[in-house]
C-alpha cells in the first residue's frame, strides 16, 4: 500500500513537472507570444485546412508556431515571417491573401456576381412594369361592375 502511494505521489509530481515545462515555453516572452497569437490568427493550418495556425493542434501547426517564435526572437518582422511561409506553402496559408492578378477572382469575383445580379434585377423589374398594361374597361364591363357594386350596397 505504501509503495502504491509513493508511486501515485511520484506520478503526480511527474505530471506537475511536465505541465510546468509546457507553461514555461508559453510564458517565456509575453511580447512574442502576443505577436504570435495575432499573426497566427491570419494563417491557415495546412493540415486542418479550415483552422487557423493559432487554433490548430496538428503537429505541423505546432512546428510552424515554434518556427515563427524562433524567427520573432531573431528579430524578423511579421511581414518577413509571412513572406517566409508564403515562399514555402504558397498564398494558401494566408486567410487574407494579397491582391494580385492570381487572386483577383477571389477578391473581385463576388462583387462581379453581385453587380450582375443587381443589373439583372433592375432589368427584370423594368420589363415587368412594361408588361402590366392597364386595359380600360368597355361600356358593357363598366355597367356590369357598377351593377355588382350597387348590389352589395343595397343589401
Amino acid at each position, binding site marked *: 500500500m505504501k509503495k502504491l502511494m509513493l508511486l501515485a505521489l511520484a506520478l503526480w509530481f511527474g505530471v506537475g513537472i511536465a505541465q510546468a515545462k509546457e507553461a514555461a515555453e508559453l510564458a517565456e516572452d509575453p511580447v512574442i507570444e502576443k505577436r504570435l497569437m495575432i499573426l497566427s490568427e491570419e494563417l491557415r493550418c495546412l493540415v486542418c485546412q479550415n483552422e487557423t495556425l493559432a487554433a490548430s493542434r496538428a503537429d505541423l501547426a505546432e512546428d510552424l508556431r515554434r518556427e515563427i517564435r524562433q524567427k520573432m526572437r531573431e528579430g524578423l518582422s511579421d511581414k518577413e515571417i509571412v513572406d517566409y511561409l508564403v515562399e514555402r*506553402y504558397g498564398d494558401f496559408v494566408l486567410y487574407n491573401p494579397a491582391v494580385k492578378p492570381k487572386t483577383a477572382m477571389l477578391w473581385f469575383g463576388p462583387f462581379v456576381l453581385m453587380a450582375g445580379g443587381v443589373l439583372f434585377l433592375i432589368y427584370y423589374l423594368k420589363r415587368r412594369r412594361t408588361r402590366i398594361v392597364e386595359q380600360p374597361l368597355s361600356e358593357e364591363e363598366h355597367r356590369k361592375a357598377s351593377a355588382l357594386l350597387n348590389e352589395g350596397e343595397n343589401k
Partner: protein
Amino acid sequence: MNRFLIPLGIFIVLVIFLGIGLTLNPREVPSPLIDKPAPEFQLTRLDDPDQMLGRKDMLGKVWLLNVWASWCVSCREEHPHLVELAQRNIVPIYGLDYKDKRDDALAWLNEFGNPYTASIMDVDGKIGIEYGVYGVPETFVIDKQGIIRYKQIGPVTPEALETKILPLVKELQQG
C-alpha cells in the same frame, strides 16, 4: 419557353462549376517551390549517424526526394511502387525520414524493403518546413541544377509514375 431557359442556363453553369470542384483535391495545394532551387540541407544519414548528406552532394544528377516516416500510414501504400522503381535503376531515390525515430525507421525499412539510395533524418521537421511539406508522403523531382521540377503530394501511384514522374525524369536526364 424563354422563362425557363435563363434559370436552366444558370443552373447548368453552376453544376459545371460544382462538378469541377468535386474533381479537385483540396489537399493538393500547389507548391510555390516548383522551378525554384531546392532548399539547402545538411542532415545525418539514417543508416550511419556519423555521415552527413546535403543538397550539393546531389548536384549533377536528377533525383527524387521522397518524404516518408515509419509512422505514416499512406507511406505503406506507395512503398511497393518505390521499391519496384528502385529495382528498375532509372533514377536514384533519396528519402527524407520526417520526424521519425532511428530505430523505428530502420525496422520499417527492414520490414518493407529499402528503395532509397540513402535516407537522411529530419528529426525536428525543420527541413520539411523548408520544403513546404505538410502531408507525408510527398515526393519531389529535382534536376541536375538542384531545381525542384515537380512535387507529388500524397502517395506515389503507378499512374503518377508513368504519366508524370518518369517522363519528366527522362526529359531532365537528357537535358
